[in-house]
């Protein structure tokens, strides 16, 4: 896709936009079923709700099954990886197709998207909500029509067929615990959050606070909003470095922001301080940064639940019971996923290739 000449590149881009349907590439991911099936073998959770490849039979017929997927937004590669996992599962079944809608990280748009899916007569809805509470009306609309609703990643506090997700709170606790252990229970830290107010940022922060309650000698000097990305983290960290001479660790909710913080440390000539990075996201690039010593720990939050969601929908449509589904604190049922271990120096090598994304980490400016 990366052409050598900018103008050509733009033309290619136009071409891809108009030609996507003509070829067999799937929407958003831009990959063919062949490519996705190759990836499928490497997905971590294919043994959960296992399903044979081949046509899916409902009431003895192999009619076309259309599964709608309303995603929070596709502004982050993590979200695309989740979609790819779902698309890969759909590719295994010739009579299963998907309608994919992009919520643009806007609850109002996503509510409309879900209703559009219903209007288009989908057989099941996969929903990964922008925000929990705001998607209640749309979720009710799905359940009222008797259509299976599989909620992924962030939950909706209303009735649903199944919720599948990992807990950002416990993941936050694990990473914070690793930090507390490394610091021997005392030190000064700064926090760079994900986009303030978004559920993973709130939950990861809560996890950290749960742990730090037990460590009164770990002081949070300051908190900044890194918005999940690199750019805002740089000036924030620069300012923190100016304001505080003694910083032991950066607790950041996103790998991108951690890389930005490391850049600020290098610019301030503070590499010698040995400031430690604790972060989240679970990308292969992040695991490499752990291996290379830039990060001490990376919360392993996997996007590869899209395929489980798809299988859960197909299980429900074919009347199969979902093993492991259980009642929980919210309406509906949940499928508890095994917690992925936090990636640290000892297990980084083992996890590289099992995270999401195939891009390289940035050069560590302190090396």
């Amino acid at each position: 896709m990366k052409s050598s000449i900018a103008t050509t590149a733009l033309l290619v881009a136009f071409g891809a936009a108009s030609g996507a349907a003509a070829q067999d590439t799937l929407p958003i991911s831009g990959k063919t079923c062949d490519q996705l099936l190759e990836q499928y073998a490497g997905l971590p959770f294919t043994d959960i709700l296992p399903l044979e490849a081949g046509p899916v039979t409902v009431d003895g017929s192999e009619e076309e099954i259309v599964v709608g997927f309303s995603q929070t937004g596709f502004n982050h590669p993590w979200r695309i990886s989740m979609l790819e996992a779902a698309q890969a599962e759909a590719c295994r079944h010739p009579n299963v197709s998907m309608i994919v809608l992009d919520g643009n990280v806007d609850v109002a748009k996503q509510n409309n998207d879900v209703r559009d899916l219903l209007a288009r007569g989908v057989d099941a809805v996969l929903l990964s909500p922008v925000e929990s509470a705001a998607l209640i009306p749309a979720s009710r609309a799905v359940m009222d029509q008797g259509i299976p609703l599989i909620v992924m990643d962030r939950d909706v506090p209303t009735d649903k067929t199944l919720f599948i997700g990992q807990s950002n709170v416990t993941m936050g606790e694990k990473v914070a615990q690793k930090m507390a252990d490394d610091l021997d229970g005392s030190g000064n830290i700064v926090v760079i959050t994900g986009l303030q107010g978004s559920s993973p940022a709130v939950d990861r922060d809560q996890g950290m606070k749960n742990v730090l309650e037990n460590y009164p000698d770990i002081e949070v000097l300051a908190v900044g909003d890194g918005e999940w990305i690199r750019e805002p983290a740089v000036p924030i960290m620069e300012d923190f470095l100016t304001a505080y001479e003694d910083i032991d660790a950066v607790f950041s909710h996103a790998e991108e922001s951690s890389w930005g913080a490391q850049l600020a440390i290098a610019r301030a000539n503070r590499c010698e301080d040995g400031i430690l990075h604790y972060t989240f996201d679970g990308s292969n690039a992040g695991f490499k940064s752990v291996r290379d010593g830039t990060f001490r720990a990376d919360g392993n939050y996997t996007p590869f639940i899209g395929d489980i969601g798809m299988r859960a929908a197909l299980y429900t449509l074919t009347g199969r019971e979902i093993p492991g589904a259980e009642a929980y604190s919210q309406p509906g049922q949940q499928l508890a996923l095994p917690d992925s271990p936090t990636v640290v120096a000892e297990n980084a090598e083992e996890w590289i290739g099992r995270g999401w994304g195939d891009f390289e980490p940035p050069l560590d400016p302190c090396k």
Partner: protein
Amino acid sequence: MTETSSPPAAARAASTGDRSATLYRLLRQTGVLAALVLLIIVSSFLNDRFLSVPNLMNVLRQVSIVGILAVGMTFVILTKGIDLSVGSILGVSVVLFAGLLETQSMAVAIPLGILAAMALGLVNGLGVAFAGIPPFIMTLGMLSFARGLAFIYTGGTPIPILNENFYDLGNGYTFGVPNPTLILIATLLVSGVVLALTPFGRSVYSIGSNEDASRLSGVPVGLYKTIVYVISGGVAGIAGLVYASQLSVGTPIAGQAYELDAIAAVVVGGTSLFGGKGSVAGTFIGTLIIGVLANILNLTGVDPFVQQLFKGALIVVAVFIMARSSRA
């Protein structure tokens, strides 16, 4: 249209250099400058590291991206236009720099990335000047369109930039000044000279004050308005260069909502949204006011939720002070 002076007065001032109008502009700018000085004084009391050289260098570097965008935005707003697409155009140039640098040298990648940004600006300009599409609508469309291009080009995944020379461009120093700051200063100086000393620059003011009068007096309004959007696009490409080289990543979401920061800097800097009045010097001061405020809020550890209140209040208060001083 609640401006305090009538557009023809400003037009006359711009074309003739009328002394009272010069004084008027000076007052507008000193009002903004006074706000900046006041903010700096207060900040220096709030944190004793604020006035340290490394911190001031940080501020100058931190404001460089939005500061550069705001320079282009000043041209557009002076013509009574608006360019909502600069953040997205920045995003396109950022992913192009990243993508091209995988196979090409900097000497190829940099001009092409900036040319692509100018091309998108040209589309804006033609739409506004010749197709009669209101600037707000035209550039709102481009905001979405250009962002889409950036996503398509990258497939939604950031492209890492592993070129060390490119990293040095964004993170190095020349004569002890951060390179991004030098790029900002160069952009300011060139723009300031163009606006003040060339017939084109003077026409930018007169178009914003009274487009019909400008046309009647022989100014090639359509051509000049087009050029203004090409400048804004090209300048967004330069800001994209600073972004990509500092951060070593071509992310398709680069520059989201930066258009609003750029507009805020221009407006706080005393340029009228109704066209014909303002300067890039004012814009630079406006940029610094916003940058210094963000810096001191971080230095003093103010909660990020509360920081948003300060930023919002500052924009309103700065414009209020400016309006008062211009009546004096």
